[in-house]
């Protein structure tokens, strides 16, 4: 498949189709609406299911229903819409059916605006949905990675029977970049739906897919199973990318677009002789805990860069046990930091570490 110029929102929608996504339910919201529009045209063309729901509340519950039937199903939305899906996501996690959701984040809180932000880290990674539950969260930094992680999200959701989130921001949804789509995968035939699916109780005991366990002991036993699956995810699904860390004395830790623009700043800083590198977490849950702890032994300071007020920052502090000074640079409300601003934060940090080298 050749590389082509693709808009992020269209790219992940088409990637999902090629990953065998059989049903899409969504509600229009900027800056991800092109994904819904792409699905509206393509899914019926391929004999698959597209429904524009009356709300995000309904959309996520349609997704839930289709997931109980054992099909590959997804939705996509943006911050305020994703907030409305929290109830459904908790039920989906509580009944262990596989679902993929793409969140193209925008500035908040409230209605906020439609500019790119990373304001939903806490909501998606730390749990907006009620109950002791986690979702796998994958954060792409390019359109190509958005495509690849969307495909991976379906596999992970099915492997662990959980919700997998692709967490990107409005700039990735809106930007056009050369990227390569995967080859087409047909949806699985009806006979090949998973053994737990609701397909009608023919020649077997009826299946019930539910998240209610009135007996606290039974609920706790179920919670233990859930927690065991999250530990399994933590053992096997940690993903991150690192650049220029071999000789670095300063490490920038940033995900998604913040990671990408930090790299531009890091390259400029290195040209000035500052030994700085980048650790870019790709899986936000599971978080690269072990790598961050090691990193705290390797560098003199860490600079966390985010497009929010410091949401991942608390996880970096925790994972490194603050064995090195942790600094933060963030812009909020839909303001995308310029690489020059990050460069300036790197220079400040360098001066703080090496005051003797400070230039007047």
């Amino acid at each position, binding site marked *: 498949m050749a590389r082509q110029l693709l808009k992020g929102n269209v790219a992940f929608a088409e990637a999902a189709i090629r990953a065998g996504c059989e049903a899409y339910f969504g509600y229009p919201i900027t800056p991800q609406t092109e994904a819904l529009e792409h699905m509206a045209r393509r899914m019926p063309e391929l004999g698959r299911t597209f429904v524009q729901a009356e709300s995000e509340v309904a959309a996520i519950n349609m997704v*839930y*229903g289709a997931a109980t039937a054992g099909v590959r199903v997804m939705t996509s939305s943006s911050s305020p819409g994703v907030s409305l899906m929290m109830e459904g996501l908790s039920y989906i996690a509580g009944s262990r059916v596989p679902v993929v959701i793409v969140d193209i984040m925008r500035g908040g809180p409230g209605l906020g605006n439609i500019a790119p932000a990373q304001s939903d880290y806490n909501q998606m990674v730390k749990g907006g949905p009620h109950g002791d539950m986690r979702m796998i969260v994958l954060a792409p930094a390019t359109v190509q990675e958005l495509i690849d992680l969307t495909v991976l999200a379906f596999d992970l959701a099915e492997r662990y029977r959980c919700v997998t989130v692709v967490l990107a921001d409005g700039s990735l949804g809106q930007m056009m970049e050369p990227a390569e789509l995967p080859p087409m995968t047909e949806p699985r035939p009806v006979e090949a739906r998973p053994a737990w699916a609701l397909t009608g109780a023919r020649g077997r005991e009826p299946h019930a897919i539910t998240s209610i366990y009135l007996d606290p002991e039974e609920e706790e036993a179920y919670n233990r199973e859930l927690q065991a699956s999250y530990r399994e995810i933590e053992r096997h699904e940690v993903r991150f990318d690192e650049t220029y860390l071999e000789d670095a004395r300063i490490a920038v830790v940033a995900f998604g677009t913040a990671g990408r623009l930090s790299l531009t700043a890091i390259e400029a800083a290195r040209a000035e002789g500052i030994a700085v590198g980048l650790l870019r977490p790709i899986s936000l849950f599971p978080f690269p805990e072990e790598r961050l702890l090691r990193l705290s032994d390797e560098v003199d300071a860490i600079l966390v860069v985010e497009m929010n007020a410091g949401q991942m920052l608390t996880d970096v502090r925790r994972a490194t046990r603050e064995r090195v000074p942790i600094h933060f640079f963030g812009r909020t409300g839909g303001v995308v930091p310029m690489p020059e601003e990050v460069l300036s934060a790197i220079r400040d940090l360098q001066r703080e570490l090496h005051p003797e080298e400070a230039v007047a």
Partner: protein
Amino acid sequence: MSVQAPSRTLAPVVSYPEALAPTPTHYCPGCTHGIAHRLVAEVIDELELRETTIGVASVGCSVFAYNYFALDFAQAPHGRAPALATGLKRTSPGKTVFTYQGDGDLASIGAAEILHAAARGERITVIFINNAIYGMTGGQMAPTTLAGQATTSSPLGRNVATQGYPLKMSELLAQVDGAAYVARQSLHDVVHIRRAKKAIRKAFEVQQQGLGFAMVELLSSCPTNWGLDAQGALDFIRDSMVPVYPLGEFKAPQATAAVQPSGNGKAAR
């Protein structure tokens, strides 16, 4: 000439529906949920749909419906059963999909989901239990609570000036083009129970024929939260609910859309 003795084996007059699980329910004595469950199960058996039907349970007293039907079942968040049913039916068009929802679930928190499922003409069957009160949480006011009816959250009686009017979901949904069959029946006596079963059967047949959205509203009892005994609760349906919620078909394929009210029910006892 010899006369053969008549067989001593008698065919059973009543049997347990296959679609109903042989399990005791948690429903209160005098509650008509059991009757509604049995009617749905009998219809599913008669239409030979047991192995191809998927039910969606809601939140409220019928939350454990999946334990009582011998069918594949999903359990939906409060009010969202029509959305789950949409997801199921669209991806399993060959299956029969139904929801079983109470009045708090369907008419209050799930008002948007039921309205839009009807508007899209989803090929699903909805069994709507209207007992004019929240049962599971202990007798609070529902959208369907009658004017003046005392509940734990309208202790002086529902004051329509501040707490609104009873919501007539069947009349409302019958206006929607995507709805193919909408009927209201009652479970307060044998005559009406038989009519209710006919309506439930039609609501499943409409789905089988792919005609659109189908709903049967069933006026039901809640003796525990109404503070009445079992017979008193059935009388309350007949005397107080039926006059507010007239019975009959509000919309049916090739049928007159005229309401056929069964009067105030006084003679039906």
